[in-house]
């Protein structure tokens, strides 16, 4: 069984492990095919280069909206638990460099170049985040501050 997935293979394996707890037959013998983008992973299934794909739910929706003949041939086998988006974290005590960097990140949406960079990451904007308020998101006493899309 070949599963196509974009990004970090280690992360994909962790997510698949959690998703396939009731399918030990699959969990023990899949081969991961790492590809650059979600659309590549989904198209790899429709063209037979992979048997299944691991993808963002929104990517599947986008493909189905854009190209229903392809998207509608895909069936969802399993869904993960909710996952955090990308995070930027920094020590609570900021030096001038870190402060300038965080400020640049906060201001990204205000410039054309910044907005394009956000789009390349698949993000709309960054938001300040309260780690303690997240359900089940224990941070083991880490003293950090972060921004979150």
């Amino acid at each position, binding site marked *: 069984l070949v599963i196509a997935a974009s990004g970090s293979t280690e992360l994909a394996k962790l997510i698949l492990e959690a998703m396939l707890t009731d399918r030990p037959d699959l969990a023990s013998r899949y081969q991961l*095919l790492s590809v650059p983008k979600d659309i590549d992973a989904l198209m790899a299934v429709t063209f037979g280069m992979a048997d299944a794909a691991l993808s963002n739910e*929104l990517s599947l929706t986008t493909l189905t909206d854009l190209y229903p003949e392809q998207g509608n041939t895909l069936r969802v086998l399993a869904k993960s638990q909710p996952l955090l988006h990308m995070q930027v974290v920094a020590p609570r005590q900021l030096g001038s460099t870190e402060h300038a960097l965080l400020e640049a990140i906060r201001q990204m949406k205000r410039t054309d170049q910044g907005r394009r960079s956000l789009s390349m990451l698949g993000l709309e904007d960054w938001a300040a985040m309260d780690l303690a308020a997240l359900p089940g998101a224990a941070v083991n006493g880490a003293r950090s501050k972060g921004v979150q899309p």
Partner: protein
Amino acid sequence: MNWLTRHPVAATTKLLNLAVMVIAVYLTAACSSSRLSTPTAHQATPRVLLLNSDQGIARYQAAQQAFHATINEEVVTVDLADQRNPAGHVQDLLNQNRFALVYCIGAKSLGIIDDINPAAPVVYSSVLNWRRFADLQRYHGIASEVPAATQLALLRYLFPEVRRIGVFHSADNRAWISHAQQIAGQLGLEIKAEEIRGPRWLERSDALLAKVDALWIISDHNTLASAETAKTLFSKADQAGRPVFAYHPFFNDLGSVVTISADLPTTGRQAAVLAMALLSNTIDAPVIQYPAGSYVTLNLRQVFKYRLRLNESALDSVDLIIAR
């Protein structure tokens, strides 16, 4: 992985997202569970011979590194550019070892292996004339071009207002174009194709350019037989105010708005997965795969020049932006 970097899902929370695992509905449970298996142990002696036509070429090196990182086997790797007599060296290696599989990167290595014709199965990638080997027994490979459906879907995603796309092609690609036109229709696009006949087709190219929103350069060696022909075609498209989409990064320097090509590390990983399947005897007929990964280069300067409306939400599908 992209599910960590996508737009927030408004229906739930801005901080959380879901990953899904999907499968094509036409796959049966049997075929989805038995096609490939992973070797469980390293062999005592190397079973795989990797022939790289030239390790100095970055794209060949990228495929080689990805192959090494993926395959669960010891591999003997040879850089043919280092050899005074590459064919003789390969013949000696094959005589002295019992390799179970040969992986060829680039046309030179595949040509040498084709002449020697070893008993072991052959996997190849980064070979532009791969179609010549498509029907040969024991030859399996990764094609050079991203599927037309992927290219067209990405073009539609990036440039939603571009609807009529012109293509020049030779008789060799007649069937391919017909297939692409069918896909284009499903995507709300229209491909206006012109089959070239004779050497003076460029002089008459203005007529097609006048009828389309953009020109699409496909892999067709009879059409763009030389760099000079390519330059002239780009010049004519520019004079007509038509942006050009192309299948290879080579065309970035000529002024393409976007190029959609195979991601070369992915081809190396695909070759490794294919090799592992062959070594575990789960494949018994020649397999040719499309590249599973795409590499998209967008030239923003050209986007502005031709006043194209760019869907910025689609930028997460772009790997490289040329801004100047």
